[in-house]
């Protein structure tokens, strides 16, 4: 059985919520103007970005690590119908420069694509076969029980660690007994299309710049699914992964914090992962991420604005949810503006039709003034800087070819993601079913 979120749908409440929010935003736009309404959520995001930027420049790079003996490692690779990618994943793991010794455990979670037969023929891996598909968290928990390593690396079957990644991450993990997990620098594998190139920038900022700065603030938000390193005893202490959670990687990060464990990050542990190549797949992925975030907020509500959890509870957690707030306000504002402009253009065209005048006249389409443009451009500069620093962290040079995806990322991608945030919020309100294999 695959993992499902099931509930009694609440279409009436959802409809009321949509109407109330829509009316409120429409009323605000009429009273204040769309510029000010759309500016408010962006100010919250600006404060978040500036905090991370200041944190970045406060990071002390001089502290040296102690030399350590690397422990035996268990690499867990949950696999569900991953015939096309898992061989590459296993090759990457085997190519790791890890001197402490390792075992690789592949957990087949009820695949039906013939990958099991393929995996059976492989030497040097332990294969754990589950008859039914029970979800990634369950697969990982089953493997933790049989893992021999003191340290566990959870690697997705479509992710490819660089040879030095595991060594870098584990060296950091064992520096401090209170460290429960180390997160890696997740990068996009083979960004060969525009959508993937935009996601490449998103991952550079999200798993590079954001992770390094939230690490400094001791407030890492997520232990990314593609690859994270855990101490086995810590996983056992906190009860493993939550099997009823669609974003088990997010949930476990919050739970580690609840149990008082630290989460580290190193940009030297680079792991490449496959990302959605089309909008439909991206939408599905993001629904899982954003709904999972909302679901976990309900589950761990006690952490929200709780000083016990430091910067994480008081700042990062509340501010991360401004993304939902911003997404909702921006989505409704865009819809309002779109309908407004559409109805205006139809009336204008019909008027021209009545008078026999030319139908299209682009000079009438001006909706953004020079002052609006200037205010917007100044406020977007921290994001430009954050993207640039993400390239620095990723040791990547900004080439001319990167400029179009960067521009699209900063100007349009956020709009698409806003709609995803907004939809995920209403799906959560509606308690829509979610099924994740």
């Amino acid at each position, binding site marked *: 059985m695959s993992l499902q979120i099931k509930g009694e749908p609440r279409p009436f409440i959802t409809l009321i919520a949509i109407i109330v929010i829509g009316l409120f935003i429409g009323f605000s736009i009429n009273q204040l103007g769309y510029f000010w309404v759309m500016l408010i959520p962006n100010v919250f995001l600006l404060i978040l970005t500036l905090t991370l930027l200041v944190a970045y420049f406060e990071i002390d790079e001089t502290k040296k690590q102690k030399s350590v003996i690397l422990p035996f490692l268990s690499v867990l690779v949950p696999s569900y119908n991953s015939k096309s990618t898992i061989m590459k994943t296993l090759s990457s793991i085997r190519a790791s420069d890890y001197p402490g010794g390792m075992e690789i455990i592949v957990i087949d979670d009820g695949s039906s694509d013939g990958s099991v037969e393929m995996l059976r023929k492989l030497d040097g891996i332990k294969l754990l076969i589950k008859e039914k598909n029970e979800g990634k968290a369950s697969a990982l928990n089953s493997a933790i029980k049989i893992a021999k390593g003191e340290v566990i690396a959870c690697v997705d079957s479509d992710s490819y660690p660089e040879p030095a990644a595991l060594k870098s991450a584990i060296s950091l993990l064992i520096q401090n007994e209170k460290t429960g997990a180390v997160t890696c620098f997740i990068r996009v594998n083979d960004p060969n299309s525009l959508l993937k190139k935009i996601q490449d920038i998103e991952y550079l900022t999200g798993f590079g710049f954001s992770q390094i700065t939230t690490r400094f603030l001791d407030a890492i938000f997520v232990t990314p699914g593609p690859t994270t390193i855990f101490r086995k005893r810590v996983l056992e202490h906190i009860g493993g992964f939550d099997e009823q959670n669609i974003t088990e990687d997010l949930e476990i990060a919050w739970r580690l914090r609840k149990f008082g464990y630290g989460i*580290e990050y190193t940009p030297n542990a680079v792991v490449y992962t496959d990302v959605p190549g089309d909008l439909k797949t991206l939408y599905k992925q993001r629904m899982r991420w954003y709904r999972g975030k909302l679901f976990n907020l309900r589950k761990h509500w006690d952490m929200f604005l709780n000083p016990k959890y430091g910067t994480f509870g008081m700042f990062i957690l509340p501010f991360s949810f401004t993304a939902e707030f911003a997404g909702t306000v921006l989505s409704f504002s865009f819809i309002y503006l779109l309908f407004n402009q559409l109805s205006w253009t139809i009336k204008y065209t019909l008027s021209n039709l009545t008078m026999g005048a030319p139908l299209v006249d682009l000079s009438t389409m001006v909706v953004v003034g020079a*002052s609006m443009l200037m205010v917007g451009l100044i406020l977007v500069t921290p994001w430009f800087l954050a993207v640039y620093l993400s390239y620095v962290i990723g040791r990547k040079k900004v080439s001319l070819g990167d400029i179009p995806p960067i521009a699209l990322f900063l100007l349009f991608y956020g709009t698409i993601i806003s709609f995803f945030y907004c939809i995920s919020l209403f799906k959560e309100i509606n308690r829509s079913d979610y099924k994740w294999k």
Partner: protein
Amino acid sequence: MEVTNGEDTMKKGVFLKAAVLAIVLFAISLYVGYSIESDSYSKTEAKLGELQEGVENSLLFSMFVQTHNDTEAVCAVLKSQLDETAQQTYNLYGELEESKSTSIFKGYESLRKKYFLANMRFYLMLREYKQACGDASLQPILFFYTAYNACPSCVAQGKVLDTVRYECKNARVYAFPLDAEELSIMKSFKAYYGISSAPSLVVGDKKYETLLGKGEIKELIGCAS
């Protein structure tokens, strides 16, 4: 690059610095935006000031015509003045409405009111000129409109009037923002022509509350195609 733990005090410093930066950046952006708009507003205001000076000038000429017998010479000067200001007046209509629709800091109501009054004076002067100088060739067109974003058909009608003005030397278009702050003269003016909606046109003292195409307007003012 490995990251080290920050001290709590240091973290507080991070938030403080970020808050100050956010305020500074926000203030700079608003200041720059406000300055750009103020500059544009001042330019429009200056143009309106020039128009108002033109009105005063033309009014004096008009009085001159009435008090002197050298009608021919004065009428020639008056006509050239009316021609010049008519161009400026109408251009200002588009500029004013476009600025209003994209403005985030400035209210353009006061300028629109002044614009209404200037146009009113020009229109009345044109009537006086026609009467005093016996010139029947000039054809005034009164164009009543409301704000750009609220009235797409006003924009469409305005574009048609642009073409008419360009093609017909005898056309004189006077634009009146119906939704400008209420003035007693505006109420009387609207009541006189029975204007209740926008866009509306008055051509040859006849009111048209429907959209008029280029051909129809040209026909009404006797402008050959």
